[in-house]
């Protein structure tokens, strides 16, 4: 039983990292209508910036906070410079731009920091605690807490502030938003900035367990994409639940089903996704597309 709960907590913890990156994907999908394939590389880039700041002597916590601010600004600049010119173009055009951004960022990281892996300091405490026989690390609990803080902050911004309301309006109907004097472009910029922050959080959470290199977020991006699909691509809440389901099932299957083991465990959540999508094509919490004809 203890082992089961430990595996569960580990699963929710890794799932939280997928959820954070999935949140970033959902933020951009809701406003721009496309999947930002460069989201993972953006996150890796952010982590490199944080790493650079620690190398320059900044303590890890401060380096990460500074990186979050820089990521917000960076995301906004990318929207303004690269995405704005293709705004309103067919989705495929925008997707190609994000693929270009993926290649650009990946190359840029190799050029600046080289291809070798680096260690990234843990900013959450790594001690283990034992509660009622269940042994777990503060790191795992902290990871979940960080995701919940990020999600809570997003919820407050979108539901309780006027700028969040304007962002929701701009995502739902850009043309009408302009008619009520909402600067839609600035809302999209802010959305990209906030997505970059979510990605940076995911990157900073996962980096201590992996090695920091330009391809670090590649596999995480696949899980995040799966989490967003599972939860419903237009639902932030769904992205988090999707991340947790994937994290938990892959960990449970990896620990309990012998023939699956550590190598095949990724297949399990993917099978679940296929099953869910057969029953609910727009994901668990996604809103189905309805068009009047």
């Amino acid at each position: 039983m203890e082992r089961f709960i430990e595996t569960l907590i580990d699963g929710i913890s890794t799932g939280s990292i997928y959820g954070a990156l999935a949140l970033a994907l959902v933020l951009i999908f809701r406003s721009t209508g496309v999947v930002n394939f460069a989201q993972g590389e953006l996150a890796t880039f952010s982590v490199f910036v944080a790493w650079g700041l620690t190398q320059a002597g900044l303590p890890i916590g401060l380096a990460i906070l500074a990186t979050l601010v820089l990521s917000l600004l960076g995301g906004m600049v990318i929207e303004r410079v690269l995405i704005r010119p293709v705004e309103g173009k067919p989705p495929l055009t925008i997707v190609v731009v994000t693929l270009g951004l993926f290649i650009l960022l990946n190359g840029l990281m190799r050029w600046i920091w080289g291809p070798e892996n680096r260690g990234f300091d843990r900013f959450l405490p790594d001690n283990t605690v034992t509660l009622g026989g269940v042994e777990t690390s503060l790191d795992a609990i902290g990871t979940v807490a960080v995701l919940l803080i990020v999600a809570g902050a997003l919820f407050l911004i979108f539901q309780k502030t006027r700028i969040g309301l304007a962002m929701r309006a701009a995502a739902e109907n850009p043309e009408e938003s302009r008619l009520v004097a909402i600067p839609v472009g600035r809302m999209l910029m802010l959305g990209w900035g906030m997505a970059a922050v979510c990605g940076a959080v995911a990157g900073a959470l996962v980096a201590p367990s992996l090695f920091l290199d330009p391809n670090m977020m590649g596999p995480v991006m696949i899980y995040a994409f799966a989490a967003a699909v599972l939860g419903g691509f237009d639902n932030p809440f769904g992205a988090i639940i999707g991340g947790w389901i994937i994290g938990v099932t892959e960990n449970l299957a990896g620990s309990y089903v012998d023939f699956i083991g550590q190598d095949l465990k990724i297949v399990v959540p993917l099978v679940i996704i296929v099953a869910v999508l057969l029953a609910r094509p727009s994901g668990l919490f996604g809103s189905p597309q309805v068009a009047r004809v």
Partner: protein
Amino acid sequence: MSALLEIEDLHAAYGPVEVLRGLSFTVNEGEIVALLGANGAGKTTTLRAICGMVRPRGNVRFDGNVVSGMVTEKVARRGIAHVPEGRGTFTSLTVEENLILGAYPKKSSEIDAGLKRSYALFPRLEERSQQRAGTLSGGEQQMLAIARALMSRPRLMLLDEPSLGLAPLVTRELFDALQTVKAEEGTTMLIVEQNANLVLRFADHAHVLETGEIAVSGDSEQLMGDEKMRRAYLGY
């Protein structure tokens, strides 16, 4: 009376199709002006050109300043509120959120005052303030769209076919409300309508458009009284 809106030699095209061919007219402060005409005459395009949703050639001046060529959100900020055709509301947002967005650039004290005015004008919206706009009836959505436009205390309100698809009783209710706005706030309005009979009783002046040009202009009473005009252009 000074001209609040001046339109001078306005041309607009969708691709190779010319929709407006040299339109000129003015709307004075406090006036209600109607644009009439058949489908495809260019009425909606005229409104869209005024608020920068289509790029026209020619001049649009608002309060003496050229606004043609400005982006829509800037035109809106100047005090032109557009109620688009077909219930322009944010359907996934609540009634109250829709109204708040109508006064997006304003201070929160003005938003509160605006909400009070909206609910006084359309009590039904207050009952449904926490409901999603998409769950309202067609008439209620149109009321919401108008209330939202009024939230910013616009100097000019553009209304695109407010009666479209509404039951006669609802339409009458809507025009009663507009009459109240006219009397109490003195908002200048430019209104596009197919229902000529209805709008001529409301408007001070009217222009009849025909394939992108003004065919006839005049005071509403004069147009209503002219038998020949009615038969030729207004179809009743």
